[in-house]
Structure formats: C-alpha cells, structure tokens
C-alpha cells in the first residue's frame, strides 16, 4: 500500500507541473488583459472492463481494467490498472498491474508513456508484491486497432512485455462487436508470480457491447486463453489448467 501512496504523491506533483499557464503571443496587449484563447486541460476516467468472469473450471472472478488521464493535448498523466478478485478463494483482490505514467504524444495516433508500476494485493498481504519501471506505447494502429504495449523491468531486474489490442466493429450506431487479444512474455522465470521464461500466455476474447449512452455500455462476451512453456508448467504444478475458456458479463463506462 505504501507503494500506491508514493505513486499518488508522484501523480499530484506531475499534475502541478502540467498546469503551468500557457503564455499568449506578443502583440502589444497590456499586461492583465489575459490571453484571448487559453490552453485547456481535461481529464477522464474510463473503466474499459468491469466484468464478472465464469471460467470453464467453475471459478468465478470479478475482473477490472481501467485507465484515467489528466492533461493537455501533448502531455498527460495516466493511471492504468488491471486486476481481479477471484471469488471464494479467501484472498483479497489483486492488481495484476497498476501503473502511473507520464504520457507524451509522439505522433498523431501514438503516445509514448513511461513511469512506475505495481503488482500485488490491494489492501492485504494475500498476494506477493513487486514494483516496475514501465515503458509503454499506447495508441491506434492503421485500421483502427487500439493498441497498448508495455515493457516492464521489475525491482528484481526481471524483464517482461505485454501487448493488448482491441478493435470495435460497429454493428449499429450503439452496438459494437469487440475482438480483443492480450499476449504476455517474459525474459526471466519468476515462479512467485507464476511467470515463466519466454511466451507466457495468449488470450483472445470477443465482447458484444450496447451503448445505453456513450458513457455507459453493458456487454457480454467470452474468451479463450492458453499458457505456454514454463508458465504453463508452473500453473500445472499449482494444480490448475494452463488452457481454458470463460464467459463474461460486464459494463464499460467513463466519467
């Protein structure tokens, strides 16, 4: 938890740096008139997925994936988090990742992001914890694929990478079919976190979403996932299946 507190302190410091007022150009306006147009700062908080997950192993979990940002057109501060609370395992919820990132627009559709990340329990010591340095490329590929890739170096020096892509196929003005994929890989084995060397896992999903409003959209969907190599072995040793499917129902919303 101390880690999160440190991150939040960092976020507020960055936010202050970002709100330095923009200067008007030089055209003889007396001081005190102010600029005719000023720089604007905005913020939003998107819960991309807040879903209930039923796996084919009769496990149930609440899963979330959110991102919030504040800033101008070029520079922004991001907070991104993904995690789950497996139901009935007696353990508290866990952040798979919680990142605080500085983001810079480097091309029309791309942001380069860097900062710190956290993995571990939310309010308890039920889960092992570790911190990361995170570098991320976030944006839209041609053909409108939304992409989030990350490269992480843990406080132990372990290196891992993840790739997420999703696509919105518009069925009607309010209904979307969203294929989604997530791939993770690691350079070192970190058994404590169930991470093997090489390709860790691939997950492919599909969600059908209906926008009651632009800001509130319930969905249903399913996914298939498979772990590979050492990662799959670790999972087997724990008595779990390295391959499986699941059904989800949830809501996407932003504020």
């Amino acid at each position, binding site marked *: 938890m101390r880690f999160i507190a440190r991150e939040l302190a960092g976020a507020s410091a960055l936010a202050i740096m970002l709100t330095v007022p*923009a*200067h*008007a*150009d*030089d*055209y*003889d*306006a*007396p001081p*005190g*008139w*102010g*600029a*005719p*147009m*000023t*720089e*604007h700062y*905005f913020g*939003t908080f998107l819960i991309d997925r807040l879903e209930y997950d039923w796996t084919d192993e009769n496990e149930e979990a609440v899963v979330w994936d959110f991102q919030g940002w504040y800033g101008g*057109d070029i520079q922004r501060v991001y907070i991104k988090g993904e995690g789950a609370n497996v139901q009935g395992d007696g353990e508290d919820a866990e952040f798979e990742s919680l990142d605080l990132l500085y983001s810079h*627009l480097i091309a*029309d*559709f791309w942001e380069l992001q860097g900062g710190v990340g956290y993995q571990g329990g939310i309010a308890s010591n039920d889960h092992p914890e570790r911190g990361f340095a995170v570098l991320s490329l976030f944006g*839209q590929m*041609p*053909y*409108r694929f939304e992409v989030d890739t990350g490269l992480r170096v843990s406080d132990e020096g372990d290196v891992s990478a993840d790739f997420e892509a999703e696509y919105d*196929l*518009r*069925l*009607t*003005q*309010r209904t979307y079919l969203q294929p989604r994929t997530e791939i993770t890989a690691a350079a070192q084995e970190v058994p404590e976190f169930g991470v093997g060397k090489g390709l860790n896992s691939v997950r492919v999903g599909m969600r059908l979403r209906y926008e009651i409003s*632009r800001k509130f959209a319930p969905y249903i969907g399913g996914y298939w996932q498979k772990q590979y190599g050492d990662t799959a072995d670790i999972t087997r040793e724990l008595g779990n299946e390295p391959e499986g499917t699941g059904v989800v129902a949830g809501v996407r919303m*932003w504020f």
Partner: protein
Amino acid sequence: MASPTSTLSRRQLLKIASALGLSTAALGLRPAWANPSGINNVYPHGAVQGRDISLAVRRESLPIAGRKARPITLNGTSPGPLIRLREGDDASLKVVNLLDEDTSIHWHGLILPPEMDGVPGISFAGIAPGQNFTARFPVNQNGTYWYHSHSGLQEQLGHAGPMIIDAAQPEPFSYDREHVLLLTDWTFEEPETVFRNLKVAEGYYNYQERTIADFFDDVAKNGLGDTLAQRSMWEQMRMSSRDIADVTGSTYTYLLNGHASRDNWTGLFKPGEKLRLRVINGSAMSYFDVRIPGLKMTVVAADGQPVQPVPVDEFRIAVAETYDVLVEPDVNRAYTIFAEAMDRSGYARGTLAPRLGMVAPIPERRRIADRGMEAMAGHGGMDHSAMTDMDDSDMSGMDHSNMQGMDHSNMQGMDHSNMQGMDHSNMQGMDHSNMQGMDHSSMQGIDHSNMQGMDHSSMQGMDHSNMQGMDHSNMQSATPAGGLLSAGTAQPGSRYDQPGIGIDPQERHVLTYSDLKAYSPWPDQRSPGRELELQLTGNMERYMWSFDGEKFSEVDGPILFEHGERLRLIFFNTTMMEHPIHLHGMWMELENGAGELIPRKHTLNVKPGERVSALVSADAPGSWAFHCHLLYHMDAGMFRVVKVA
C-alpha cells in the same frame, strides 16, 4: 435601384416593427419570447435602435423548445434583440455584464477601430462581472451582420444576436418587407461538457457512423473490391468518412430566431410582396443548407456586401456567414423555410405565410453523405511523392476525374504501361515535378482534359511512346512567369464551383462561391505584393485544431501585415472538416475568378482538401483576431492574432 414607394413602405414597416419591439421590451410584461411568432415584422426578439443602445447580459432560466434551459440572455431574450443602426451614424453600444464571469461582444463583420472590436485580450480587457463597456464607432457600412460573445464558450449559450445597418444610399435592390432569419444551435448540455466530450471521445455526438450494414450495401452497389479499397483507405487513415459535423443533432436543437422546429416561427407576407430575408448563421458549430420549397431565392448580398443577383433553389451557409435573399411569394399559401444541418442530423424550420397558423409540408431530410477522395487532397495519406518503382501496368478503365491538389513529386521508376481508357479530366493543382524514369508507353484512350495548374517540371527520362488517342485539351498552366498568380485568379486546388459535401447539384440549383460577384468593383484593385499561405491543420482523434500545426498557445508571435499593403492569404485545408475562417477588422476578397467584381467577405468557408485564397488590403492598423469560427475549433487553438503595423 429602389423605387421611392418601396423605400417608403419599408420605412413604415420598420417603424411598426421597432414600436412593437421596444414596447414589449420596455413594458417587460410580455417578453418577446411570448410573442406569437411573426407578429413582429422583422425579428421576434424585439429590436433596439437609436443613438444610445444598451444591452444587459444575464444568465437566466427560459424555456427553449419547450424545455427548461439556462441560456445567456441579452435584454431578456436569447438570442438577443436585433440591433438596428444607420450607415453614417455614430454607434454607441453599451454592454452591461450581469453574469458572474467576464463577457464581451464582438460586432461581427463591422469595420471599426481595433479597441472597439470586442475581443478580450486583443481589443480590450473584457468586461468583468458588474462592469460595463461602451463600444463607440462610426458606422461606415450597411447590410446584414450579427454580434456575439468572444469570451470562452458563451456563444454556445445563445450570447448572440442579429445586427442590421440600414443603408444611407438606396441599395441596388428593392423589397416590400423584410425578415431576419437567425440560425443557431442550442444544447441543453453545458458547453464545457460538449468540449470535454469532444476531447475525450471525438465521435461522441456522431450517431450516423458507418456500420456493417453500410458495408454490405456498398458491396452490393459497388462490388467487394471497390468497397474494400474505399474502406481500407479510410480505416488505414483512422478516420471516418461520416465525420461531417463534430457536434450534431444528437445534442443540438436547431433554432430559427430562437424557435425550435415545432414552435414554427412564422414570418408574414402579403401575396405579391417582395421579401428580403436576412439569413445569419449564428451557430456555434453547424453549417446549414437553406431552402424554401416552392420559392426561388435571389441572393443579393453575402456577408453584408451586395453581390450581383444569383437566383438559387438552395444555399449552404457556413458558420458566421450571412446571406440576403429576395423571395416573391405570390400565392396565398404557406412556405416552409427549411435549414438542414450539413450532416443531416437535424434541421431548423420556420414558415413564411400570409397569416399565422398556416403550415406547409416539411421536406424529408437527406441521408448523410460519405466524404470522398476530394477531402483527402490535403491529407498526408494522399501524398504520392517519393513513390518508387511501382508497377501500375494494366490499369484500365479508371476514373481519376475530380482529383485536386495532389502532390506527385519525386516519383521514380514507375511503369504506367498498358493503361487504357482512363479519365483524368478535372484534375487541378497537381505537382508532377521530379518524376524520373517513367514508362508511359502503350497508354490508350486517355482523357486529360480540364487539368489546371499542373507543374510537370523536372520530369526526366520518361518514355511516352505509343500513347494513343489521348486528349490533352484544356490543360492550363496557372503559373505565370512572375511567380504570383494574377489578382483574382482561383488557386489550384480550389473548388469554388462545388457547393460541398452532401449536396447533389443535379437535384436543384445550389449557390457556390463561383456565383458570388460584387455588385460593383471594390475600391482597391491592386495586385497582391506578396502571399501568405496558412495550412488549416488538425488532429481529429485528439480534437486538436490549429494553423500550420501550431495552436494559439504554441505560436510565438502575431501574423504581421504591413500597414497599407495588399496581400494574398491562402488557406490550405489539410483536414477532413470544413472551416469557416474569419478575419476581424478587414475584408477578405475571395479570389473566385470574378475579375474586377471580386466579392468581399468576413468569413470564408474552406472545404476539406481545398485551397482558397483571398486578397486583403491591410488598411486597419492594430491587432485583430483571426480564427476558425467553429467555436470549439477556435477554443482548441485554431486562432491567431494579425497585427497590422
């Protein structure tokens, strides 16, 4: 020339109108809002005129379209009252700020001293809460104009109104009765919320996007190959061909003189009368296509300035433009005034009728159009420079007509052999310089007619052997030896003869910029001494808007005009949206090829991919605002200061 009788009757009508307007405002018993539509002859929200005019600015609760709303009002109405001035008089316009934030009023289209122009931070400090400011200036022009706040996003809250300046001399046309038609777009959301929604999720208000059904429709119509090619081009660019309006009828209620369609604002006439309709687009974001089914409209003024009469069935009015049209309803029936939003997501509507309560059918709305190739001319995705070693052989039956402003420079080693039956007509402003080693052998039956302003310099080692049956007629080099185009010439890449997206010119006669010719020549007929090209730039995804890629907060100085100079401004729209570009303090003379009858305007619409140029006489020393008049584009940074010194 106006006949004496019609001038007289007009004056009488004005008296009646102002008496009504003033009495309702003065008594305060019956706000202009409650007036039965059309009782007032000119404008339903009352008029203020005379030597000393005062406007009180408030935020208050008023119903709009039958719902509770909180607009900004001027003397109790939103939009505000009609301000009526007389050419040759001195205006004294006092603005009293009863808001709890700063405000301002810009007198749109008026030529006046810079300190009276009403732009906070450039003309003056703005008007603090509880304070007032009096704009005093000599009125040296006449026609139809408007006024609006230049502070923040207040314009979106209805802080705007019409302004008419009566001519000192008879105008070049006559009429029996006049009506103001002020078009606005109202939203029940706060403007800041609208802006944030656009910034966070650009397509927020667009409920007419392409769906999978449109894809299959296109496949059925145009075949799978064509459809895939079209769609993949747009998808590759990560843009929407349905992005016609940023803010749409999904949040906007479109208003005519402050009245929603169902309120049916009615302007009265007696059959046989000639009516002057003063149409003002006072919207924050919406272009309209205006027509009155059953009536021919004769355009007699654009942006307040008289033009040679143009009879039309419909005209597109960009944000901040004004058009004066004459109509002659000679039958005892009602006519619908139909102002359809450019993206077809809604409309404003009113009625012209011999008496109140009459209605005419409301036309069906058109379907939203998809933007085509022409929108991409300025886009990076259509830059074919630096293409090398492409084999385009065996292309046949392609239609490249209507491609404009494309850059084909630096193409090397291309093989265009075996192209047959291609139509390259109507290509404009293409740069084919620096093409090397191209093989154009064996091209047959190609039509290159009507290509204008093309630069084929520095093409080397090209093999044009065996080209047969090609028609290169009507190719014009628009580049004279001197460098600058001669004054008034249309720029390569301009599309003044096209009314724009979503209009079928076959369906009815629609006004275009080519039709606009000044009624008589404007005094300054000098050629430009220099030209200044500005790119209109943006990032749709992030909702960033700018000139030359720099937002106002990023530029380090004003655009400098030398006092007394005559210069050419060129706007090259590299974005996929229309932009109405407005210069304060000076006219822009639109170089649409009208010769010495070059028309002048305060706001110029620049279509996607288009190059538009205007001549400016820099005769107004001082600092002036210069911006895109789409409110959220301006506020996002598509704004500059022009300093004349």
